[in-house]
């Protein structure tokens, strides 16, 4: 069972995360900033939001550097197969989307759901930016 641990900054991002973490084989999902701060998380009990967010940003940045350095353009998706689980990271305009999945989870299905979740997150983030930029907004 996934326990909801929303961060203050990201309650609106919970819906796409909820759909994503309902995918078979997915253990957890989160959105982190470029510098590793959690924005929104859906984790299992005892999973550390800070550690996973830091990992998402660190791996995401390294993967983006490696992909560009090896002449493969901009990073779209990084999949890291470990003994206990799969880490899947996808860049977003606000940072990174990270999924923790079972080692034998259906990668194609998860990648597809991550694509949909990323699109929804981008839309929400754009809406928040527009609200902040509007008169009376934060910016």
């Amino acid at each position, binding site marked *: 069972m996934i326990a909801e641990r929303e961060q203050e900054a990201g309650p609106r991002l919970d819906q796409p995360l909820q759909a994503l973490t309902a995918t078979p084989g997915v253990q957890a999902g989160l959105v982190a900033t470029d510098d590793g701060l959690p924005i929104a998380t859906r984790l299992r009990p005892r999973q550390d939001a800070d550690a996973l967010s830091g990992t998402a940003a660190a791996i995401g940045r*390294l993967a983006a550097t490696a992909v560009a*350095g090896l002449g*493969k*353009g901009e990073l779209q*998706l*990084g999949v890291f197969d*470990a*003994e206990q689980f799969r880490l899947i990271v996808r860049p977003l305009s606000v940072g990174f989307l990270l999924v923790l999945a079972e080692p034998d989870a259906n990668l194609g299905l998860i990648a597809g759901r991550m694509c949909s979740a990323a699109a929804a997150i981008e839309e929400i983030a754009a809406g928040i930016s527009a609200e902040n930029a509007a008169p009376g907004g934060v910016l």
Partner: protein
Amino acid sequence: MANTEAPRKAQPGWEQYRRLLRRDPDSLRFAEFADFARRQGRLVEAATVCARGLMRHPGYATGRVVMGEIFWDQQLEDKAEQEWLEALRLDPGHPRAQLRLGELYLRRGSAARAAEALEASLLFQPAWPEARALLERAQQQLPQSAAQARLAERLAKPSELPPWLAPARFRDLLTAVRACPSVDSALLADADGLLLANGSDTPTDEAEERAAAAVELVQQTRRMVARLGAGKLRAALLRGSAGSLRCVILGNLTLVAGVRPEVPPGSANAEIEEAITDLSQRGERDDS
């Protein structure tokens, strides 16, 4: 290092190099231009181009190697040695610097030092004919007992390689992976990010940088994954806008395969896994 090419008129590339450096005086391609001039026997021009480039980029190891080669061709052996040692200080293990130092030590009659440097150069490029030929000469000059001691020392070093993946099979591995229809390049690097074999069309310098970037990713991810309690990292797949990369961890080595942009990453994975499995089974059969 024999300069076998006689001086001759400018090649078609000469003016292109000049234009390139005029357009971009900060370009690192000064070393390539200087090397080109040196090979043509135009040593004064080569030295001028290289010295100017090194004033702008004093920490560029390959530039130092080329400068050393120019000095060597000018019979300035000590100055050549200084440049190659400086290149190694800037980039420990630089294969061409190791090769040149090996050749220098061989000329000075220090067969053991020469063999050491040449073995180091072959560690990065096992199939380098020039280094192999020089190493053979150095080994012929070594007292048999010393050669045997060196071999025993190397064999005694603990290896984290899979049993079937002996250094002699590095090239076979890259050839097998490169033969996969979906793969357009392959590199093999050690845990320090140093290139062991280059199965791509990119020049060695560039391949070294690529190997280092991939291994940095693998090593850091490996540590983070271990901290999260996920066990050992086995492989990574990176999909970019211009193609994918498959990184396979083989003991303390990392194999990086570039996947053609039009190929779905899944089919590339299957091909690469099959190539590695075939080679490992063949290796185990041969060993037994």
